């Protein structure tokens, strides 16, 4: 097992720079998730760690070795691809044994390692099948088995669950997390799905446009986003963002939005009176309350455990997640309240979180 340290990593394709000096570290045995929208550079960064992309500037260390100039096979890493990348002309057994054969291990060693990995992943009955005879979930397990047999220092996952259906994705998330717990290996996991990031990571690295926006534990990122992008990207449904100006309201402060609606703010907003900001409210921090802010229901989506409600407040669309099953319908006028001490403030110009 090994730690990974990335220092000021830059990646450019000709004149186009796609990674702008990112620095991040993964501790030995840690499960780090790189998350962000398409094109943010997370897969590029992962491929640079793997050695499949060259690094334009900066350093990548695995353990205590700088690996910039090393071939992938010399970095002691294993990778699970989005498309599984199983060799279609080889059986499951041969797929898993391929790397060991290249390393000139003995037949007994190869058999032992393959069987061990197969037992961990429940692949023993499938060893003589070809990839085309397997389901998506089975193929994904074979791809993980191919990585496990090598006992690498670091596991790299490049959106491995993207091609699976929703139910299987949830199941495989748990299996990968259980695998991490069992092996105690360092794992770097790339996904665009913030739910995967929240449920699987020890730490999350949120990326955008070639930069790292924030690094932290899932709850740190969720509760204290560094900027409005992180706040709206993490969490489903997304955080509601309301533009306005902080105005004095008695002893406290409120946000006055473009329609003149006054939104209550926490105490720490008082020093920022007069500032133009974005108010971030998580959907679950909105509740129905008599005497609150008027809203007109525009959509009601019951999911069983909760109800997602879209409503219009002035000209803005606000999304709320309600635990109870309120007897509301489209077109109803309701009154809402927000848990103001949980709301977030972001500078309107920079998007940065205001403390």
């Amino acid at each position, binding site marked *: 097992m090994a730690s990974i340290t990335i220092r000021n990593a830059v990646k450019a394709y000709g004149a186009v720079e796609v990674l702008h000096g990112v620095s991040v570290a993964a501790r030995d045995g840690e499960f780090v998730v790189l998350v962000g929208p398409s094109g943010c550079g997370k897969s590029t960064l992962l491929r640079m760690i793997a050695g*499949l992309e060259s690094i334009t500037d900066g350093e990548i260390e695995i353990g205590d070795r700088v690996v910039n100039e090393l071939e992938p096979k010399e970095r002691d890493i294993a*990778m699970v691809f*989005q498309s*599984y990348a199983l060799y*279609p002309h080889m059986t499951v057994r041969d797929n898993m044994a391929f790397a060991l054969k290249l390393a000139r291990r003995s037949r007994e060693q190869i058999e032992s390692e393959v069987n061990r990995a197969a037992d961990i992943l429940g692949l023993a009955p499938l060893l003589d099948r070809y990839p*085309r005879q397997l389901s998506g979930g089975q193929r994904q397990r074979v791809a993980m088995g191919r990585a496990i047999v*090598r006992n690498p220092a670091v596991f790299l996952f490049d959106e491995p669950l993207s091609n699976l259906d929703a139910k299987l994705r949830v199941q495989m998330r748990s299996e990968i997390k259980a695998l991490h717990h069992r092996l105690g290996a360092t794992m770097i996991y790339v996904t665009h799905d913030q739910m995967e990031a929240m449920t699987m990571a020890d730490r999350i690295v949120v990326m955008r446009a070639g930069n790292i926006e924030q690094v932290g534990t899932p709850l740190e990122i969720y509760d204290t986003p560094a900027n409005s992008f992180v706040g709206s990207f993490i969490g489903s449904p997304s955080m509601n963002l309301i533009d306005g100006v902080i105005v004095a309201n008695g002893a406290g402060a409120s946000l006055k939005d473009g329609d003149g609606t006054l939104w209550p703010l926490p105490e720490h907003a008082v020093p920022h009176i007069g500032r133009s900001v974005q108010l971030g409210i998580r959907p679950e921090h909105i509740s129905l309350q008599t005497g609150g802010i008027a809203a007109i229901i525009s959509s009601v989506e019951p999911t069983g455990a909760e109800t997602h409600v879209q409503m219009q407040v002035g000209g803005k669309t606000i999304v709320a997640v309600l635990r109870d099953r309120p007897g509301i319908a489209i077109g109803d006028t309701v009154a809402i309240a927000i848990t103001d001490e949980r709301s977030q403030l972001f500078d309107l110009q920079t998007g940065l979180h205001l403390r």
Partner: protein
Amino acid sequence: MTTRSKSRAGALALDILNHGALALVALLFLFPFFWMISNAVRSNSEVLAIPVRILPTVFEWDNFAEAWTTLPFGRFFINSLIVSISVTVITVVVSCLSGYAFARLKFPGRDALLMSYLATLMVPSIMLIIPLFLIVNYLGMVNTFQGVILPVAFGTFGSFLLRQFFLSIPNELEEAARIDGASRLRILVSIIVPLSMPAIGLLSLFTFISQWNNFLWPLIVMTGANNATLPVGLTLFQTQQGTAWNYIMAGATLSMLPGILLAILLQKLIYNSIALNAGMGGR
């Protein structure tokens, strides 16, 4: 007649028309082969007789044995096999290596080199006969197998065909193999080539048949009956005393057999490989 029975009758008529047209085309393609075999089993005088008879009056099956023994036919077969197999093997090996280099390796001038390589396809091969012969003569390879084999074994078509096929193989397979520890050559041998058997099979088949049927170049480079390949050897039935057309047809019929056998063998390989590639990359 109801609308339903009208459309059924119309579909039937169209079916008959389609099958009829296909049968006609098949007949046009197959008739030369039938005519060759028909003339192979009749007497020479009957070959040229008017009126023309589709089937011989007397079937002379001995013509095959006569053709085989009148000239050193066995020798012609072996010479053709040596030339065809050698050219095929060299072509496939070189095309795999060069096709992979053009498909996957990044080096300065690669695309320009590929374009100039492809441009040579525009040159009619007949124009290269004289310069190639001069080179072969200069190297002292006239009347040798290497003189026949080497100039035709390094063609552009195979490289281009395999390059295009290699480009269709997902890059992630190679990346996975690189991470597993494979070198470029190992990736080519263990991953790319097994997945490219349809294209390699086709290239092998075309190359083999093309060299098997190659008349002009072996005629120019080789002298003497013992060095002749089959197409050249068949012409030795044309003498000053006359032409033994029935023996030529018998010899030609025998000459077809290895090509047909190879096509049958490779057909299964090509079809199985296409089925395998359907699941390529785990998709």
